[in-house]
Structures are given as structure tokens and as C-alpha cells.
């Protein structure tokens, strides 16, 4: 990869020489990247290039996959997240995640959002919890649509609303980083536009890393873009540079639609 003019003075997360293995198979090969605090970083690349795998290693969700192994160094605020002293539960409270398919729990809308604050004991009483839920739903742009039916099941919402509910659920524990794994791939264009709008609004409040298939989406929402191919990081830079003036031939081929 090229270390270009990219200097992030205050990186939220840093990754150095990261390799990820699933059993014998190496899914990620020597990736180093810094994620900025107030930036939206997009991971793009063809299917199977390892971008989701790398994303999942940032909050150790790969731990739940049998046979997965991560080597190298990944740090959050300079603290090694794979160190034995790191509590994975606390890590995931600080690095939240939104999945490809909306996965609300089969509970009420309120309980979906309140789930995280409850397990982490963030709200000492009911009115505090109400406040946290309301604030999270507002930030996720869902409050006006659901405020009168907080008791209804989260699974009864539309796909786009469910995904915003999942974002609200992630926001509710007040994380520092939000990882989004192709959050719009199961949504229609209107719901997608709402999520993108939401990402704009959340920028600056959280460090956001988004994996996407959709290059236009990466161009619209992100300030930094990383292009992955075959498990390696091919190019990482300012989004405008990657899309207008890629340095690598492979990047150029991909964004001009020659493969992928």
C-alpha cells in the first residue's frame, strides 16, 4: 500500500500489520490503517476482498467465529485491543456495530434501544433510561416515526426503520466508534438515502467506519476510503483522491468498473 499524504493527527484506532486467518485460510494479509476520530472511513472492494473481515476484527467480533485468528496490532486510543488485559465486553461497548441485515431483537422498540444501557448499567433510574432512549432514537432520526408506539415490536418496523433502530441501539451505549457492515445493502434507495443522511449527522460525534459495495455511497458519505483486494489493502487515502486520482492501477480499474 502507499502511505500517501494521509496524516491523521489524532487516530481513534490504529492497525499495524494485521493478518486474519480462518483456520488455514488467510483472509487478511498485512493490513495497516489508521481511523480518524472525526471522520467517516469507507472500506470498498469486490466481494470476498476481506473488508468485512477486517471490520469485524476492529471490535473482536471475529472472536465468535470458530477457528478465526488475528495477528498484528490493533489499538483503540493507543490501547491494544487484543491484549489479555482488554475486556472484550467493554471494547464492544466502545466500538459499536451495525450489521448488513437489520437485526432488531424480538422485543419492543423501547427495549431494543434500552438493551445496551441496561446491561451496562448506564441509567440509574427509569427517567434516565427514557432520556437515553429518546436521545438515541432522535440521533438515529427515528424518534418522530416511533415515539407513539415505543411498545410495539421492533421487528414490525420496515427494513429501513429497523436499520435505523439498530443504529439507535448502537448509539444508546454512547460508543466512540461505530462500525457499519454494508448497512444499506438490504434496503431500498429511499431508506438508503435516510441512512446516508444519518451518517452525515453522526459524523464528528463518533468515528465511523463503513463497509460498502456501493462506490457512489462511499464517495457520498466518507472522507477517507480504503480499497481492499484479495485480502490486502491496495490503497488508502482521501476519498476525493481515491475517486478522482487513484495512484494504483488496480484501484483505477475497480472504480472505473473494470472488475468487481
Amino acid at each position, binding site marked *: 500500500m502507499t502511505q500517501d499524504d494521509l496524516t491523521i493527527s489524532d487516530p481513534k484506532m490504529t492497525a499495524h500489520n494485521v493478518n486474519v486467518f480462518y483456520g488455514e485460510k488467510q483472509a487478511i494479509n498485512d493490513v495497516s490503517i489508521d481511523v480518524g476520530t472525526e471522520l467517516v472511513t469507507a472500506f470498498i472492494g469486490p466481494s470476498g476482498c476481506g473488508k468485512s473481515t477486517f471490520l469485524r476484527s476492529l*471490535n473482536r*467480533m471475529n472472536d*465468535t467465529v*470458530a477457528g478465526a485468528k488475528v495477528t498484528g496490532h490493533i489499538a483503540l486510543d493507543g490501547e491494544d485491543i487484543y491484549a489479555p488485559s482488554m475486556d472484550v*465486553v*467493554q*471494547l*464492544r*461497548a*466502545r466500538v*459499536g*456495530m451495525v*450489521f448488513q*441485515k437489520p*437485526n*432488531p*431483537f*424480538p*422485543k419492543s422498540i423501547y427495549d431494543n434501544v434500552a*438493551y*445496551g444501557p441496561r*446491561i*451496562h448499567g448506564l441509567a440509574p433510574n427509569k427517567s434516565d433510561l427514557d432520556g437515553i432512549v429518546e436521545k438515541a432514537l432522535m440521533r438515529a432520526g427515528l424518534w418522530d416515526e416511533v415515539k407513539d408506539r415505543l411498545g410495539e415490536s421492533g421487528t414490525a418496523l420496515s427494513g429501513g426503520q429497523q436499520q435505523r433502530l*439498530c443504529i439507535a*441501539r*448502537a448509539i444508546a*451505549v454512547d460508543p466512540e466508534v461505530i462500525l457499519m457492515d454494508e448497512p444499506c445493502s438490504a434496503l431500498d434507495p429511499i431508506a438508503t438515502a435516510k441512512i446516508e443522511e444519518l451518517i452525515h449527522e453522526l459524523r464528528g460525534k463518533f468515528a465511523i467506519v463503513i463497509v460498502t459495495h456501493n462506490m457512489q455511497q462511499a464517495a457520498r458519505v466518507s472522507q477517507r476510503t480504503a480499497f481492499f483486494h484479495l485480502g490486502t489493502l491496495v490503497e488508502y487515502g482521501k476519498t476525493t483522491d481515491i475517486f478522482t486520482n487513484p495512484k494504483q492501477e488496480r484501484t483505477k480499474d475497480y472504480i472505473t468498473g473494470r472488475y468487481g
Partner: protein
Amino acid sequence: MTFNAAALLLLIAGLALIGWIAGRARSNLLAARAQAKLHSRPQYHGWYVALWLFAPAALFLAVWSAVSPGLITNDVLASEAAKDLPAFGFERGAILSDARNVAQGKQDAVRIPAAAPLVAPYADATHLYAWIGIGAMLALALAGGLYAFTRIKPDFRARTRVEKIVMLVLLLASLVAILTTFGIVLSLLFESIRFFRLVSPAELLFGTNWAPTSGAPQDDTFGGIPLFWGTILIGAIIAMIVAIPIGMMTAVYLTQYAAPRVRRWVKPLLEILAGVPTVVYGYFAALTVAPALREFAVMLGIPNASTESALAAGIVMGVMIIPFVSSMADDSINAVPQAMRDGSLALGATPNETIRQVLIPAALPGVMGGILLAVSRAIGETMIVVMAAGLSANMTANPFASVTTVTAQIVKLLTGDQEFDSAKTLAAFALGLVLFVVTLLLNIVALRIVKKYREAYE
């Protein structure tokens, strides 16, 4: 000459084999001669002939085996020698069967002197009907075979016919189980109706005094409530208190924590537990658990502690259905999408919190269905309660006391010397009917819940 159905069946099977060979050869021959392509491959023509040869004859054989003894007896009764027979009853039957056994060579000499004159008529009639039967059967086999044989032509669609017959056979096979169920229900129903002519349904369902064998028939009472209570206490309360927590914890361990290696060993072991004959559990309950519990109860100073206790039967029954509950819960937890689990873990929930707050609530409908199925199994279980729960119909909530269940009473009512039309014998059928209806309803509700829940995630 007697009518030996098994030998005759072999005979027509042999003929069918010849028919098969002949049919196949003929189809080949005809095709070669006409220089035409066969519609069906030769063996289908063979099967067509063989089936036509075999099926009607076998059917006749079955019917004739059932009908001919009656015809023979009628013939004998019409003869001169039968004039002196007693009119009805056991004696008449005994004489007739004595004569029949001698005539058919199952016995060397008559044991009842009165049977002696009947031996010859029996032998004649047996002979006659055997020849009629064999003749008719062979005629049918040959007629069927010839009919099929003459139909063979190159363009004859033997394959579709054979496939139709195969389908018919499969259909009949599946009907056996269904029709048997109907038959069982009907027989239960008829006997129960006879019982309810003697005792009102209200007494059985709501009466509180169960004393079917008080000695004097007019004093017998058939109040079923103590039995129903005993059944619920053992099968639905004590057994479930044991089986639900242990089964659920087993399922959670196996689905969430166990390494694949452990799972590979533990699951089959649990299935073995499910395959232990219930009588073995009965021994265990009666010989090991019950005495231990009694001593425990005496130590605690509980009155009426009996060696036959509801607790012993209930605990062992609970152990018996642990695999049942755990495998249903296992399936339900596994059916909760991985995304649900990931969603919770990604919020910083511990595996434990994830299981308690997300997986189990999401799996609950399926688990409930499994529990209802387990209850319906437990209340229908017989051996354990017969051996360990006792037979005295007490209405007590004391788990150390002896109680009885519907199934245990059915066994008691039907064993020993009983007239088959007395109220106490018929009561067994009425109890069986109640049990059948309750378990049927439980199963229907349980299966609906399970099905509805499965649809939600697929």
C-alpha cells in the same frame, strides 16, 4: 388336506416369478418380431404380469383365510352329529374347537368325549373348503396372469401401470397407521359409551371419590378427580420442575458453550437416555429413589411418608424427559438467527446476558411447544407410576405421600380376573379416552406453536 396359507402364498409367489420371466421374454420377442421399440423396458412388462398374477390371488387368499373357518363350522353345525351339542356358551365352543383340533391334526385324540362324533364332519368340511380355496386361488392367479400376458404389446404402457400400482401400495401402507389410529379411537369410544351408560360422565370427570373395587358393585364410585390430580402432580408439576430447568440448561450449554467435541459426545449420550425402556426407569424409581426419599422425609418429620411417593415417580419421570426438553430447546435456540446473537454481543453484552435476554426469549415459543409435548408424554407415561407412585387415590399436595395416576389405574383395572363388561373394566376405557383427548389437545397446541414459531425465522 388343510389350507396352509403360508405355503400357498409361496406357491403364487413362485408363479409370479414365472410370470415375470415370461412377460419379460414375451415383450422382447414381440418387439423383435415387429421391429418396434418397446414403450416400456422389458422388466416392466414382467412386473405387470407378475403383479396381475400375484395380487388378486393373494387378496383372495387373505379373504378366504378369514372366511373359510366360519364356513367349515357352519357345515359341521348343519350335520347330523351336531344335533346333540349344548345350545350356547363355553361348553359348546370347547367341544367344537376340540373336534377341530383333532380333525386338523393339531391334537391326537379328543379330550371331551362329546366331540368325538364331530371329528369326521370337521375333517370332511376342512378338506372340501381347502380344495375349493386352492382351486379358486389358482384359477384367479392364472386368469390374472393370462390377462396381463395377452396385453403385452410393444406400445403397451406397462411402466405407467406398474408405477400406478406401486403408488397404490405406498398409499395403502400410509393408510395403515391412520386407519389403526381411527380403529383405536373407535374402540375406546364404544367401550367408553358402554361405561357412561352405567356411570355418568359428570361423576367420572368431577367426582372426588375413586373406589372402583369396593367389593359390592352398587357401592363402587368412579370419581376421577383424585386420579387427574395425581397425574398432574406427577407428570405436569414434579416432572416438569425437574425436566425444564435441567433440560434448558443442558440445551444452553450444548448450543452456546460446549466445544464441538463435547457436543459430539454429549448429544448421543442424551439420546441414549431417551432410549432407556421406561420399565428400567420404573425399577430405578421404585428401588432406589423412593426408599431414599422416604428416609429423607422421615428425617424431616413429614407425616404419611410412603415408599410409594409422588415425588419419586415425578423426579424419575422428569429425568426421563430431560432429553426430550433439551433437544426441543436445542433446536429452538439454534433456530434463532446468528445475527441476533451478534447484535447483542456487538453491544457489549456478555454471552450470559445474550443467552438470558435475547436467545431464550426469542426461542421461547419453540421451547414452550417442546414443554407441552413433554407434558403430554409425561401424563401418558405408565410404567414408572405403576411401579413407584402407588395405587391409592389420595388427593394430597404432599409430594411424599402416595398418589395414583390415570395410567396406573388403567393398568390396575385391566389386570387380574375381571368380567369384561363390568363397570370397573369399562372405566379403564373411559379413563383412556380422557387421557387420549387431553394428550391429543396438548400435542395439537404444541405443534401449532412450534410451527408458527419456525415460520417466523425462515
